[in-house]
C-alpha cells in the first residue's frame, strides 16, 4: 500500500489555513471547505488505513489528545487493543463546553471533513462499526456544518456517521459523560473503577476530541516525516477573541506579537480549570504540549485568556470560580457543597479578605480536589490555587484593603 505524501500540496495548509480566525466574523478568504475543496486542499485520505503504520506515525510525532488532558493517543489506542473487544463506537467530541475556547467550533465550521476523516482513521484503528459526532445542540453553526458534511460524504464506504447533540453545558464534553450517554444514560460524568477501560459496563467507546481527529486526518496523509506539528489555541484579550494555529517551536511571546496582543500581566492557560501563569514565566515557553509538560505546565484545551497589566487577578478569578461551581452536576457531595463555598471565599478574596478566610479557602481547595467522579472540582482547585500563587502580591494588597485595579484608576 502506498502511504506516501503523493498528492499532497507542497505547502501544508495547516488545519484552518489562516493565521488568525476571529470568532464570530470570518475574514475574507476564510471559509468552510466542502468535500471538493477539502479533497483539493488536503488530497485524498489513504484508504484503507493500515493500523500498524498509523500507530507508528502517531508514536513518532507523539500526538496527544487536544481536549485538554493531552493523553498520548498511542497509549489510548494500546489500551483499546488490549481490551480485545469489538463492536466499537468512535466518538468525535465537539461539545466544547469550555466558555473561553472556540477552536473546536472553528474547526467544525471550517474543516468538517478533516474531523470526519480523522474519525474514519480512529474507526479503522479499532475496527469500529459506528461513528458518532457529539455536539452541543446550541452550537448551530457546527451542527449545520457537520450535517452538510455527512450528506456530502454519502457515497463513501466506511462506518456510518451519525450526529448526536446534547444540551450545552461544561460537563457534556467530559469523556465519561459521553460514554454514559452512548450507553443510554444521561450525559453526566460517572465513576470509573477500570483505568484503561473507561467504557466498562457497556459497549466499548473510543472518544477523541475533534482537533485530535483533524490532526490524525493530516498525519494519515503526510506520515510522520512530513507532518507539521502545531496546536490550535483560542486567544481572548478583552473583547478580542480569535483562534490561531501555532506552529511547533513558536513561543508565547512570538504568538502574542503575531496576533498583536500586548504583553499581559498573566495568562489563564488551558481553560477555566487551568492555571494562571505570570507572563514573565510564560513568554519564553513554547506553545507545545510536550514542552509545556516538561516545564510543569499544560496547554489544556488551548485556552489563552489574558489578564492585562493593571487589572486585578483576584477579581478575574472569582467569577470563574463561581461559574465552575454553577456547572457542578450536583452528583458528588464534595463538588456540590464544596465548590459554592470555594466560590464564596473567592469573592471574599477579591474584596478585603481576613487572614483566616484565605486559610479557609486553601483548606477547602484540598477538600474538593480529586473527590468527584470527573475533574471539575480538581480543575477549580487548580485554577484558584494558581491565582493564590501567581497573584500572591495582590492577596497581600487586598488583605490591607488595596487593589491594583483601583490604584490604576487614580
Amino acid at each position, binding site marked *: 500500500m502506498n502511504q506516501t505524501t503523493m498528492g499532497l500540496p507542497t505547502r501544508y495548509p495547516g488545519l484552518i489555513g489562516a493565521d488568525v480566525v476571529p470568532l464570530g466574523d470570518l475574514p475574507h478568504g476564510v471559509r468552510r471547505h466542502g468535500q471538493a475543496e477539502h479533497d483539493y486542499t488536503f488530497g485524498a485520505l489513504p484508504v484503507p488505513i493500515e493500523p500498524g503504520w498509523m500507530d507508528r506515525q502517531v508514536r513518532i510525532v507523539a500526538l496527544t489528545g487536544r481536549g485538554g488532558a493531552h493523553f498520548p493517543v498511542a497509549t489510548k489506542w494500546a489500551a483499546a487493543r488490549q481490551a480485545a473487544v469489538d463492536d466499537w463506537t468512535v466518538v468525535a467530541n465537539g461539545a466544547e463546553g469550555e466558555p473561553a475556547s472556540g477552536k473546536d467550533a472553528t474547526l467544525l465550521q471550517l474543516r468538517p471533513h478533516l474531523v470526519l476523516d480523522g474519525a474514519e482513521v480512529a474507526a479503522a484503528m479499532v475496527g469500529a462499526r459506528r461513528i458518532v459526532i457529539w455536539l452541543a445542540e446550541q452550537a448551530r453553526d457546527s451542527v449545520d456544518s457537520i450535517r452538510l458534511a455527512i450528506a456530502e460524504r454519502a457515497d463513501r464506504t466506511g462506518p456510518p456517521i451519525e450526529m448526536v447533540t446534547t444540551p450545552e453545558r461544561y460537563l457534556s*464534553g467530559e*469523556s465519561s459523560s459521553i460514554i454514559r450517554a452512548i450507553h443510554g444514560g444521561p450525559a453526566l460524568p460517572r465513576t470509573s473503577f477500570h483505568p484503561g477501560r473507561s467504557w466498562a459496563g457497556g459497549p466499548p467507546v473510543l472518544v477523541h476530541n475533534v482537533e485530535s481527529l483533524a490532526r490524525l486526518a493530516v498525519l494519515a496523509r503526510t506520515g510522520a516525516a512530513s507532518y507539521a506539528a502545531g496546536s490550535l489555541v483560542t486567544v481572548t484579550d478583552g473583547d478580542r477573541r480569535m483562534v490561531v494555529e501555532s506552529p511547533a517551536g513558536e513561543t508565547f511571546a512570538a504568538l502574542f506579537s503575531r496576533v498583536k496582543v500586548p504583553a499581559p500581566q498573566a495568562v489563564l492557560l488551558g481553560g477555566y480549570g*487551568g492555571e494562571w501563569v505570570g507572563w514573565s514565566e510564560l513568554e519564553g515557553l513554547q506553545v507545545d504540549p510536550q514542552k509545556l509538560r516538561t516545564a510543569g505546565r499544560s496547554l489544556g484545551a488551548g485556552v489563552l485568556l489574558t489578564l492585562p497589566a493593571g487589572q486585578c487577578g483576584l477579581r478575574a478569578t472569582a467569577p470563574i470560580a463561581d461559574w465552575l461551581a454553577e456547572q457542578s452536576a450536583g452528583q458528588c457531595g464534595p463538588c456540590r457543597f464544596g465548590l459554592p463555598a470555594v466560590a464564596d471565599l473567592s469573592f471574599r478574596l477579591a474584596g478585603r479578605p481576613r487572614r483566616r478566610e484565605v486559610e479557609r479557602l486553601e483548606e477547602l481547595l484540598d477538600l474538593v480536589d480529586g473527590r*468527584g467522579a*470527573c475533574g471539575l472540582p480538581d480543575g477549580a482547585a487548580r485554577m484558584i490555587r494558581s491565582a493564590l500563587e501567581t497573584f500572591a502580591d495582590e492577596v497581600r494588597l487586598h488583605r490591607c484593603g488595596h487593589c491594583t485595579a483601583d490604584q490604576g484608576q487614580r
Partner: protein
Amino acid sequence: MVNHAGGGPGRLLIDPVACDGVGMCAHLAPSLIELDPWGYPVIPTETVDGADARAAGRAVRGCPKLALRFVPSTDPDRSLRGDPPTVSTRTGLTRTN
C-alpha cells in the same frame, strides 16, 4: 463487585456519584475513614492491610448506597495502570483525547 476483603492488602475506593454522605462507613471503619464538613467520606490512606482491611470490608458491606469498593492489590483491573479511580487531569475536565 469485589468486596471480599479477607485481610489482604488493597485499596478502599469511593464512588462519589453513588455516595450520599450517609456516614455509615466512618462508624464502621473509624481508623480508615473521616467525614468532611459536609458529611462525605475522606480516606487518607492509599493502601490498607490486615485489621484495617477487615474494617474496610465491614464498611463496604455496611454502605447503604453501595458506594464503597475494596479493590485487592492483585486485581488485574487495577494493575493495568496505577491511577486513582477518578479521571483527574492537569487541566480540569478530561475532555477526551
